[in-house]
């Protein structure tokens, strides 16, 4: 009906309804949908709702892990086999290029680095596919879309745990020393998770607008691997490259992680700050980009 016919009483009732709706958020008795500019949804109700529905992200990730494992003969063993084989390939390659006096610690460093890098690249790859892959769900239901990439990060993290156990076996087999400082690696693991969450949200959004993203991703990730302190020790960087490598977020995040885990070396304070800084920057930029766009996803899929 034309708005000209609206009486003052209607306006008052509307206003009351809007007030009630704005107080109660998503799950309220009254919801009001109005046009909005491209922008962020109200942050507090959004994150409250995100937290409330986190069992969905957990269940989605669990179900996907189950269904992925039923199709191959080795099943779950591939979670370990995959990064292990990759580490072996790089070890052979690097040993041909430049034989080292002490291959043991280097191999341990290589596996720890590759396992961790695999976690981040896994979160990024599955995260990028999460929104586009959940098309029917997104087109037909209203829920905080951030749950989709978060589920991908959870999947990647749980796939990272078995390789981590394997790393400790390698650590022991190579006769590397155990020290209490290894526990501090958990800090960098936390940075990895936060960083991966931000990047997963970022690439999930990119994938909605450019479906080529996942095709470029493997090459992008490979270059990133070479630029990260995985195939080389952090102190082996040529002096002329060192200033630039600090701009790689994984320089501090992965560097700190492997230094602590493999050698028990406590990195300088700068590395700790840098790792946290990159993680927070990634999560803020990634989440805000995702959230500012997510209400458009339903029409873009």
């Amino acid at each position, binding site marked *: *009906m*034309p*708005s000209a*016919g*609206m*009486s003052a009483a*209607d306006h008052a*009732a*509307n206003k*009351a*309804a809007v007030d009630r*709706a704005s107080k109660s958020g*998503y*799950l309220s*008795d*009254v*919801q*009001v*949908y*109005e*046009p*909005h500019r491209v922008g962020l949804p109200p942050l507090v109700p959004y994150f409250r*709702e995100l937290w*409330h*529905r986190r*069992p*969905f992200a957990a*269940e*989605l990730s669990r*179900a*996907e892990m189950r*269904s992925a494992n039923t199709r191959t003969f080795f099943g779950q063993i591939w979670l370990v086999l995959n990064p292990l084989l990759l580490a072996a390939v790089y070890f052979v390659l690097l040993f041909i290029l430049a034989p080292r006096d002490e291959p043991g610690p280097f191999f341990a460093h290589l596996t720890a680095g590759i396992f961790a890098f695999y976690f981040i690249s896994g979160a990024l790859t599955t995260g990028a596919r999460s929104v586009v*892959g*959940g*098309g*029917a*769900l997104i*087109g*037909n*239901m*209203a*829920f905080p879309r951030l*749950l989709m990439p978060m589920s991908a990060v959870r999947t990647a993290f749980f796939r990272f745990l078995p390789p981590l156990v394997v790393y400790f076996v390698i650590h022991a087999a190579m006769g590397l020393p155990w020290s209490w400082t290894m526990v501090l690696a958990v800090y960098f693991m936390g940075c990895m998770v936060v960083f991966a969450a931000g990047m997963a949200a970022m690439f999930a959004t990119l994938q909605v*607008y*450019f*479906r*080529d993203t996942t095709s470029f991703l493997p090459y992008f990730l490979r270059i990133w691997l070479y630029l990260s302190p995985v195939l080389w020790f952090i102190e082996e960087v040529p002096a002329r490259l060192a200033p630039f490598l600090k701009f790689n977020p994984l320089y501090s995040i992965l560097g700190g992680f492997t230094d602590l885990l493999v050698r028990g070396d406590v990195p300088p304070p700068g590395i700790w700050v840098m790792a946290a800084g990159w993680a927070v920057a990634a999560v803020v930029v990634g989440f805000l980009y995702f959230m500012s766009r997510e*209400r458009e996803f*339903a*029409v*873009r899929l």
Partner: protein
Amino acid sequence: MSSLFASESRAPDAVAAPLPVDDVAVRVQNVSVTYRTTFERTPTFKTAVVRLGRGERAVREVQALKNVSFEVPVGTSLGIVGANGAGKSTLIRTLGGILPPTSGRIEVHGRISALLALGVGFNPNLSGTENVVLGGLANGLTRRQVDERAHDIAEFAELGDFMDLPIRTYSSGMRSRLAFAVSVHMDPDILMIDEALSAGDAKFKKKAAEKMHELMTTARAMFLVSHALASVKEMCNAAIWLHKGELMLQGSPEEVVAGYTKFLEVGEDAFSLEDL
């Protein structure tokens, strides 16, 4: 504001939640929805570059709803009729908060099961049970509520052991049975049933109709999108007719169906006749 269906509204004796100040379940005011879709089905870098070279714009506007207004009082079961592409699905997606309106305002009093059912089966590699559980959790139910309902849903859909098999092994009838079972078991205040749910054999259709009658006594309002005009007349106590995004007629199901049928007879597109 006119309240065309006011005479139809029944006493909401079975409604558990407290009544809002006004007896309106859904209020739609001057709502327009304009999609901005890309030319290409799947946007890629290549087409983006080519388009940039030609100086074309990436988006094209589709007016799915044009200045639609209506009110649905509590207790209404609203039939939505119209040809393909009339904007019926857009309307219920907008009511469900999935698509934001381009202009206008929508007020929904109660929790909507926004096409939950159509989201079921989004991952064909997951089992029926897993899809049901995921849909329920995404809709904001707790794990325990979902588990309770999953059992009822399996029973109602009569899928038996198929519930534990991947959805890709289902026949289309089984899928729609599951979808219908999900949408009626989520206890929404406002129920939405899309035409896609009408598949299923005669026996299931009868069961579905009985279930919908039962729900009409407990739900605050119901929306039924259907091409089966007979079932709109039978199930609904009010109806609207959309055509190319515009609200053509609202009133009692008999009036609206008669108007729609007449409109189809006097001309318009021949394809619409198949829908009858």
